[in-house]
């Protein structure tokens, strides 16, 4: 039997000094140990990478577990090789390493224990790694899906919160803006007119902010759909300028202009409301940042063929301008030129982000060029289909204007909120229409049965019976040749509410707060097309 030579001393190992360079070039892990004490004498780079521990005076016991060390000792005493497998995390992976230990003799009285290790890359092992990996990947997929579900749920809560906040804010705002409109009808001193105008414009601003926040959340959820209708662009541009001009306090130093490259433009199919929203945003921004000089909204017809035409809208101002590096930041949500902008000019920082997204929906993008202290130009090009009904729409619009009096009409106002009922009545008080009141859906049905009602202005959410159920019931009661106009009057601006109204059988929706003239116009239009 082999006997371990007791004369081996650690100081005799000086012969190994130059070994490391040689060993380091191998792609196997190598470990050289004292064959009695199992103290580590030398290790190569590969081994240090796998087992990065402080190796001063460490022995095999510090690296491998007791069973393995016991068997290695046993194998040494029996002059045998000993093979073993170890699982070890190397870098990002769990590797299976095949080790084998054996005695090497340099001369008669000098032996070392040599341990070699190599990563097991046999087919079976690789199959196992791939199998494990697929289990982990599947697990990760489940985790990711759970996380996505969580985020979606949170996002839904956010959207619901925004929708209900919008509803809650609109209701009192309807009270304020409605009363202001009624106030204008009374005899006012110039000072009172000035005060009431301030209340009105503040209310309008607040409403615009609520709408922006709501729009933004709809865009985030991809809920905005474009509704293209035949549109007269020249009229739309003039409208935009007239709306924006109202907010300008002094027009002495600032000129607001429109510029048309053509006498006439073809009628096009476009979502007029959204296009108007973008242009109003761009022009209002220009006005906000321009103290003197001019703001110009230009409409150019770039090309036109049988079916399509390409148009460019541009808003040019002579305002404070934007630094080149900040232009890209402009379209990010909640971003303003700098934090002092919010202090000096107000706003949510959502306007341009919304405009950017809307123009993107129309398959285009907003270009910005600007020079600090000289002004900016915001422009976008749209390729729009030319509307086939170039004349027909004008005829309809013409007929709308003919009905102006509601003298012999009966209008039923249904709303549980006293202030809201009052405001709708105020809006209709000049129309000389016969006004009926109901405080919930059930009362509305009773009134409908007792009277010949022409138009019903229906709130949606009411106690006892809501507007949807009342509408359904009324539609059932109607004879086949009779159709009563039912308009929803709601403070909920969500698409869902709109869909519910239409599904219940209502003809149209008016969002609270509303302008008196808009409500009258809508009623007239409804009666005219009946």
């Amino acid at each position, binding site marked *: 039997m082999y006997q371990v030579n007791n004369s081996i001393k650690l100081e005799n190992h000086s012969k190994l000094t130059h070994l490391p360079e040689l060993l380091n070039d191998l792609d196997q892990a190598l470990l050289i140990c004292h064959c009695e004490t199992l103290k580590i004498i030398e290790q190569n780079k590969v081994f240090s990478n796998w087992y990065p521990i402080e190796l001063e005076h460490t022995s095999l016991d510090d690296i491998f577990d007791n069973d393995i060390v016991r068997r290695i000792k046993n194998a040494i005493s029996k002059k045998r090789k*000993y093979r073993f497998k170890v699982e070890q995390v190397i870098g990002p992976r769990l590797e299976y390493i095949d080790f084998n230990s054996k005695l090497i003799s340099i001369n008669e009285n000098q032996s070392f224990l040599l341990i070699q290790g190599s990563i097991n890359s046999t087919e079976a092992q690789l199959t196992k790694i791939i199998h494990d990996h697929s289990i982990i990947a599947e697990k990760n997929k489940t985790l990711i899906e759970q996380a996505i579900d969580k985020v979606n749920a949170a996002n839904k809560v956010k959207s619901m919160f925004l929708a209900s906040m919008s509803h809650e804010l609109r209701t009192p705002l309807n009270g304020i803006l409605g009363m202001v409109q009624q106030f204008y009808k009374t005899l006012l001193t110039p000072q009172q007119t000035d005060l009431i105008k301030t209340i009105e414009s503040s209310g309008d601003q607040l409403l615009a902010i609520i709408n922006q926040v709501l729009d933004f959340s709809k865009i985030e959820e991809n809920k905005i759909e474009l509704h293209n209708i035949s549109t007269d662009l020249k009229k739309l541009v003039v409208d935009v300028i007239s709306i924006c001009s109202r907010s300008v306090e002094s027009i002495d130093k600032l000129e607001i202009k429109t510029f048309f490259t053509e006498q006439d433009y073809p009628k096009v199919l476009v979502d007029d409301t959204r296009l108007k929203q973008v242009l109003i945003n761009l022009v209002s921004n220009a006005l906000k940042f321009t103290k003197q000089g001019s703001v110009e909204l230009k409409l150019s017809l770039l090309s036109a063929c049988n079916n399509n035409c390409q148009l460019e809208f541009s808003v040019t101002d002579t305002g404070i301008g934007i630094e080149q590096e900040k232009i890209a930041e402009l379209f990010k949500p909640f971003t303003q030129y700098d934090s002092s902008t919010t202090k000096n000019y107000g706003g949510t920082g959502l306007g341009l982000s919304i405009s950017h997204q809307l123009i993107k929906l129309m398959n285009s993008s907003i270009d910005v060029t600007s020079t600090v202290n000289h002004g900016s130009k915001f422009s976008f090009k749209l390729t729009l289909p030319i509307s086939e009904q170039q004349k027909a729409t004008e005829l309809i619009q013409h007929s709308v204007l003919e009905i102006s009096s509601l003298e012999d009409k009966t209008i039923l106002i249904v709303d549980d909120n006293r202030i809201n009922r009052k405001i709708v009545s105020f809006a209709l008080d000049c129309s000389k229409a016969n006004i009926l009141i109901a405080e919930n859906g059930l009362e509305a049905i009773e009134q409908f049965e007792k009277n010949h009602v022409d138009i019903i202005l229906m709130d949606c959410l009411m106690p006892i019976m809501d507007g949807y159920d009342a509408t359904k019931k009324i539609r059932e009661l109607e004879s086949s040749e009779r159709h009563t106009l039912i308009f929803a009057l709601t403070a909920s601006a969500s698409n869902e509410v709109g869909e519910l109204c239409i599904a219940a059988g209502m003809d149209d929706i008016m969002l609270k707060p509303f302008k008196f003239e808009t409500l009258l116009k809508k009623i007239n239009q409804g009666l005219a097309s009946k």
Partner: protein
Amino acid sequence: MSTTLYDKYGGFETFSAVVRNFYQKILDSEELAPYFDNVNMEKLMSHQTNFISTALGGPDNYTGIDLKKAHAPYKITVPHFQEVAELLDESLDEAGVEQEDIKSIISLIASLMDQIVSSE
């Protein structure tokens, strides 16, 4: 009826791995390796797997010849027999077989010593 050791540790798959590991250990031993210089190892391992399986209550597939006749030409010594038994012990230990069961397997093998050892 209690389960056999063969079934308890996973049957053929486990014991064929134990046998493979066991012969690797034998070949790694300078003392034992020379016995196997001209032996067809695959065939031997297959025989041994069947032998152990049968001994531990598995299916009876052992078709080898008489143990005494088979080992006689090799002039096996007691220490070598004991070392082989030790390597089998180690192989079973590494495969996760409980100490109690290893003991009973080794004592079964030890009872065959007379048939295998043929030299001083």
